[in-house]
């Protein structure tokens, strides 16, 4: 139809046009985006770029403060030595178990709790605030609290179970390797659950209510509504939760350190405890940095794994 004279274009008012500026396009999107990112990039860049680079540099060195004379560049020697380091390997095993247990519990409980808190019921406001309680507790206090609770001599848990007749004498819960492992996991879950709940709850609050209406009309039951409406909308928050909780679980230190110090034996000697000890107690900065970078890389790989798995599930773009 291009031939049709659709447009009665008027003759130009003046033949001599003013020298037309080349049409200014707004600044390019990419530029604008980086402009918006600049403050964050500057703060992060200025403050942590150097430390991060430095720590990676250190991880390529043999470097123990106590023996400055031995300092030397060893390429990936520290990393290679880890492969044969029995302590590291056991610790890796413990850590993986710990991460799996903690992550599983956190995500399941967190989702359940967020869903509950998203409903209206008497006392919701209170429960919503209570959810944050564990988070507000400094890690040291948290560790001490759990110590007190599980104390073999004076712990209220022992007292309670004893009074209720579940046990016939006080138990030293933290002294068996399994017990210690599970208890640290529980304490960690208790401590990090609020983050999951808050993020998921905020995610839930963005779901347009009318989608549930539509799904109800489309005959989706409670479970299907969760799967078809809630879950897809929660993918993004879940991704954050997964990444951050994985990171947290890999770096869980405070609570474990206070509760068991990594013991008994190697039962709770997760890599983070080992890492902190190596750096701060043994002042082995080279090896310590290598540990840190192993943690970093593992969490990075796992995170990218999450991202790509969820990405494949569709409807998610980072």
């Amino acid at each position, binding site marked *: 139809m291009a031939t049709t004279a659709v447009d009665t274009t008027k003759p130009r008012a003046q033949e001599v046009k003013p020298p037309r500026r080349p049409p200014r396009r707004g600044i390019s999107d990419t530029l604008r985006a980086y402009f918006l990112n600049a403050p964050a990039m500057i703060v992060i860049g200025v403050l942590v770029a150097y430390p991060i680079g430095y720590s990676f540099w250190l991880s390529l060195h043999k470097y123990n403060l106590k023996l400055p004379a031995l300092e030397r560049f060893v390429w990936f020697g520290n990393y290679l030595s880890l492969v044969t380091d029995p302590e590291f390997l056991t610790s890796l095993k413990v850590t993986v178990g710990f991460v799996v247990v903690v992550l599983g519990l956190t995500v399941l409980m967190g989702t359940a709790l967020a869903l509950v808190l998203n409903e209206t019921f008497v006392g919701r406001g209170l429960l919503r605030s209570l959810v944050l309680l564990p988070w507000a507790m400094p890690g040291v206090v948290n560790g001490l609290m759990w110590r007190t609770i599980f104390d073999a001599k004076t712990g209220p848990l022992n007292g309670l179970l004893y009074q209720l007749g579940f046990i016939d004498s006080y138990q030293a819960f933290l002294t068996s390797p399994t017990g210690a492992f599970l208890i640290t996991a529980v304490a960690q879950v208790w401590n990090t659950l609020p983050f999951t709940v808050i993020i998921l709850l905020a995610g839930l609050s963005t779901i347009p209510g*009318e989608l549930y209406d*539509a799904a109800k009309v*489309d005959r989706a039951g409670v479970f299907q509504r969760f799967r078809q409406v809630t879950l897809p909308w929660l993918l993004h928050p879940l991704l954050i939760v997964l990444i951050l909780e994985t990171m947290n679980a890999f770096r869980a230190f405070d609570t474990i350190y206070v509760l068991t110090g990594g013991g008994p034996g190697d039962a709770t000697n997760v890599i983070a405890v080992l890492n902190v000890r190596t750096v701060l107690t043994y002042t082995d900065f080279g090896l310590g940095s290598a540990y840190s970078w192993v943690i970093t890389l593992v969490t990075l790989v796992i995170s990218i794994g999450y991202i790509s798995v969820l990405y494949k599930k569709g409807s998610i773009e980072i």
Partner: protein
Amino acid sequence: MAEVRLENVRKEFGGVVAVDDLSLTIADREFLTLVGPSGCGKSTTLRMICGLERTSGGEVFFDDQPVAHLPANKRDVAMVFQSYALYPHKTVAQNIGFALRMMRVPKAEIASRVDQVAASLGIENLLERKPKALSGGQRQRVALGRAVIRDAGAYLLDEPLSNLDAQLRVTMRAELKRLHADLRRTFIYVTHDQVEAMTMSDRIAVMKDGLVQQCASPEEIYARPANLFVASFMGSPPMNFLHGEVQREDGKLLFRHQGIAIELPDHASAAVDDLSGREAVLGIRPEDVLLGVENGTAAKIFVAELLGADVLVTVSLGEQLVKARVPAPYQVGVNAQVTVEFPAEKVHLFDPSDGRAVLAARSATPLNRQDSVVANQSPAAAKGDTG
């Protein structure tokens, strides 16, 4: 499902009464249209039928069973939401096929039915898009598709065609009528398009302020509006209204308005008794007003507008403007004198105190079933409706 019955249903939103004591029975297989001014409670009524909104009072029955305890997903109704409510994270195909998936229909069947529905809606090439990437009308069609793909007990359609162009609307109307004929299910339809209401419905329920004003067949609504509101709401251009008094004079029944006397038919006797001594409102549709007849009342042409084959002539009768619809050509200049007549058989009388119709026209001009549900059909489909 079959009959849907609302009994004294009421809905308040924290003080705002959206639906106020509404009773309505929609028979099995009926096509009922809800019309009414914006904000009168149509959508709310649908939502209550559907189970998305709890009633604040009264009861909803499906086939004589109260359904208050049934959640929406157990009620077996399909609905087109006024706001579409598409799943933004699903493609068009997934949106349309969702209900079937919930009913565990096999994948292949879903796919073929989705294709079929999409084709009938003209969105077959958008199936892989997300709603975000659709135009307004395309979204509305997806919303419609999501409902019509189902085999539900009742279909609730909340202004499902409002954002479509005229042509498409005609096609869609035909599709919906066909669906209604094929499925033989209850349809409850909300629309602002009077042509749609008139041509598609078995009955129309006219609502105002959360109350049903009249629920009857389109012809009945048009010919015998139950009250002033219905009379003024249905019909375009709307009915003329004259305020005056009724009296008996010399055995004649008369309506007097500013010195003009209009004779009323004999059967108006009871109505006149009812209203005598009080103000009365006379109503007459523009197409029933006669111009230029002998013995008519003198009036002046105020304005005349060409409506294709007709002319809409507005005459001033004293202070009052009256519209008349007469066949074109009608070549009379503005301010020209003309005579007007209101045929006795065609006037309505209303009691202004409560708006109630006390006299309906005996032979109103038949309804304007203008549109084209039929007009667009193939010869075979068109047999029923011959004028």
